[in-house]
């Protein structure tokens, strides 16, 4: 009774605030999103990762047009390229055994690798969030089916299952490999979303929303999902790097994308045969995979730190 009176007085208090709002204090008023964003900006390693990724995307997608290295399949035998030529002004990353411009191929392959990493992440997220939310919120049959399915997927060694699935599901085109990797990745995402939903659905704010008449669908996607967004975003970022590695492993073993499409993975597989003559054919696509995946991991960890509510602002 006392507290409610106090509450009333503070809410409807017309008096001047005790603390004077100095300019320093006014500046500190930021939205939650702004605080998280600022925290991310001040994380040096995560920012290096983010800048590298932006550069990588720009180079792979705009580079061919801007630099004119837009013909990855042309055999530069007559126009100064030759075979296995070392890096030069004309061919910044050299040429391969049949005189193809490695710079053009690295950008072309990068487009495919990045598209696969990003789009299979997007599909995994959509599937994982919808199914995980249904399973976590309603329980019952959907939950049972989901848990048994993920049990099966988790109990078979990952790469073995992936190789078998690739022969069943893909025709070795980028689109089919995206499909393969995303139906593979959604299960872990669904488990994560499910556990978040189970943890959140009994919280007071959900009860409060239910009390004022919010329906199940609204509760799930307007109230609970935003509160579970942190772990989902972090895992989505890490998933992209993971997907790029999965694609490269598949392509390296000949189960993934095959020529005429270039990807960083099948460029390594192709260059492997010329390791003695020109190690650059392997090292360049390998380094590109490594740096890209590293950047996604740095950004993911930076986001995790930025979203962590226990990390107080200093």
């Amino acid at each position, binding site marked *: 009774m006392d507290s409610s009176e106090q509450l009333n007085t503070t809410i409807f208090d017309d008096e001047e605030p005790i603390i004077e709002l100095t300019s320093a204090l006014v500046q500190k008023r930021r939205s939650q999103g702004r605080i998280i964003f600022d925290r991310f900006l001040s994380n040096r390693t995560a920012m290096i990762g983010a800048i590298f990724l932006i550069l990588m995307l720009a180079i792979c997608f705009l580079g061919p047009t801007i630099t004119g290295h837009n013909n990855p399949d042309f055999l530069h035998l007559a126009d100064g390229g030759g075979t296995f030529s070392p890096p030069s002004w004309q061919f910044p990353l050299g040429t391969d055994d049949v005189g193809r411009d490695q710079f053009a191929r690295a950008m072309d392959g990068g487009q495919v690798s990045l598209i696969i990493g990003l789009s299979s992440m997007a599909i995994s997220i959509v599937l994982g969030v919808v199914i995980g939310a249904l399973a976590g919120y309603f329980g019952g049959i959907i939950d049972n089916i989901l848990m048994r399915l993920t*049990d*099966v997927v988790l*109990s*078979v060694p990952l790469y*073995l299952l992936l190789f078998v699935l690739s022969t*069943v599901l893909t025709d070795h085109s980028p689109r089919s490999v995206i499909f393969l990797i995303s139906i593979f990745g959604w299960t872990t995402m669904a488990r994560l979303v499910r556990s978040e939903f189970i943890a959140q659905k009994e919280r007071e704010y959900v009860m409060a929303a239910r009390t004022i008449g919010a329906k199940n669908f609204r509760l799930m996607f307007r109230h609970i999902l935003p509160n579970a967004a942190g772990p989902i975003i972090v895992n989505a970022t890490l998933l992209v790097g993971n997907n790029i590695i999965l694609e490269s*492993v598949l392509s390296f073993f000949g189960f993934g994308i095959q020529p005429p499409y270039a990807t960083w993975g099948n460029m390594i597989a192709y260059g492997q045969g010329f390791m003695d003559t020109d190690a650059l054919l*392997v090292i360049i696509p*390998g380094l590109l995979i490594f740096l890209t*995946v590293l950047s996604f991991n740095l950004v993911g960890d930076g986001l995790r730190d930025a979203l962590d509510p226990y990390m107080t602002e200093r």
Partner: protein
Amino acid sequence: MGRYIIRRVIQAIPLLFLVSIAMFGLIHLMPGGPVGVFLNPHLSAEGRAAINARFGLNQPLPVQYVKWLLNTFQGNFGFSFVTNQSVTQVLGEHFPPTLELFSSALLLALIVAVFLGTVSGARQGSVLDYSVTTLSYFGISMPIFFLGLLAQEVFGIWLHALPVSGQSTAGIVFDPFNAAWDQLNHLILPMLILSITFIAGWSRYMRSSMVEVRKQDYIRTARAKGASTSSVLIHHALRNALIPLITVVAIDFGSIAGGAAITETVFAWPGMGQLFISSLEARDYPVLLSMLILGAVFVIIANLLADILYAIIDPRIRYS
């Protein structure tokens, strides 16, 4: 505890059933099939039918599955379509090299990861801590096959220090001591490459677990009653910090097996990984199916072992 183990084993049976049904279906969905993949393409329709009948592939899938299941219960895992040896014999030949690679890499990864994680967790913010963190980022982001190729280039081609393929030098008969030395030399690179990814992941995990444990009250109490820093670190902190790592290691067992398959292919190691890839290309159904299910059994056992290890390391954990 005994009852708990029995219950867990019983729970694993339906899961194995599901895995076997899923894998059986998946394998038969693969395009081509044994007849299409490795037999004479000019074979007449009657010839194809005869071969299909010989392998029992002309029957409806559920019938084939039940037959396979009944045979499996009797310890008969079928015969390889390619070599006509029994599956037990084929797997028996390829299992020892994989076991050697797998267990040595696992042991190495565990020792190095626990050591690095403990030291960097105990010396948080030191140069060593930053180097371990940096190295673990490198290890996690590096595709294992690329690392293998780089290692072959550096240690094999540039330095001529280590053999880069196979399990032993072909064509030379050594005396027992030199043969063992030769095998060890061949093991070093694949073992290192396979363990690096897991050293990276586990040492990071171990580090954060160590940092967390060192904040606990019982650590301060142990210091207060006069235990030395190293004694507290080893007897109090390490033991408690190991608990979360066990789950991660158990979950990663499947990935190590998959990583072993990749490493074996890169280093021409004559184990199960190579067998898997070649059986997959030849559509050797009995061998493939046995390997997939063996993999699942292996992962399920690893998870059970992890739960039992919990109870041993942390006596507060009781299963009922």
